[in-house]
């Protein structure tokens, strides 16, 4: 249940500023070789932070009921199920053949 909590323009503005900053950073960092797969990890991490800002403040989840948090969490939890049980297949393919070699 969303509260009728009215967020101040200032707070919205601050979140907006942070989001723009993070956008510029993620583009900037993309040109720097961080070694190994770290570029991908950092890019996704920044995206997660941006997403959280949108969810918590623009979508009012910060001010919402626990039931809302449950629903929001469930969606992402299920996405994690899809990823965590699918990815072992391509990653571990060929490690063991059906005949045991």
């Amino acid at each position, binding site marked *: *249940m969303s509260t009728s909590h009215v967020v101040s323009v200032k707070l919205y503005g601050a979140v907006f500023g942070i*989001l723009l900053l993070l*956008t*510029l950073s993620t583009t900037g960092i993309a040109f*720097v070789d961080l070694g190994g797969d770290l570029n991908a990890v950092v890019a996704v991490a920044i995206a997660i932070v941006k997403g959280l800002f949108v969810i918590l403040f*623009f*979508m009012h989840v910060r001010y919402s009921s626990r039931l809302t948090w449950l*629903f929001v969490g469930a969606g992402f939890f*299920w996405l994690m199920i899809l990823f965590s049980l699918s990815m072992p297949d391509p990653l571990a393919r060929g490690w063991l053949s059906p005949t045991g070699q």
Partner: protein
Amino acid sequence: MSEPEAIHLHQFDDPVQQHEASWLGMWVFLGTEVMFFGGMFLGYTFYRTAYPQGFASASNHLDIWLGTINTAVLICSSFTMALAVRAGQIGQNRLVKIFLCLTIVLGIVFLGIKFTEYYQKFEEHLVPGSDFRFEGAFVSSAEIFFSFYFAMTGIHALHMIIGIGLLATLIVKTARGRFSATYNTPIELVGLYWHFVDIVWIFLFPLLYLVGRHLE
């Protein structure tokens, strides 16, 4: 001051119950959208893991500056959308219309840039199909990359178009005096949808545009 039409529909006991149901209903719907887009993200992850170099090479053919600008445009539109919802909460219908209009304009700018990019890709023969051309060793995985590029941004753009339609409907309803400080749920719900579509792009941008920039 409450608006003349039914404050709550007959299946509900009171406006509070109606608002709670509507709010939860939209979040349930967004849950389905997470899984819908999530399936494409899984496919993307499968192939990026299998063909990292092909994906990096193909990604570098996208215009990083148009992509960055588009990301900023969408973030601006989320800002204006949030302000529109806020205006609705305090019954400032004039501001609601202004912010909704700005959101639509920004959405159209996004789509304009997107279609410009699509046209560029068409001219560069990077649209998957019989006319696909890509120099270098990674032609096959590049075609898979561009298949995901078009599928994911295309479906995202479709969601944006639907969102713009919803926003336009809201502007009409606001102009007709349907909303007030006591009843502005539709604005709130369209806001949730719009922010969600923004979040999808927040993830699409780095995964499509920023794969191999550090290798250039």
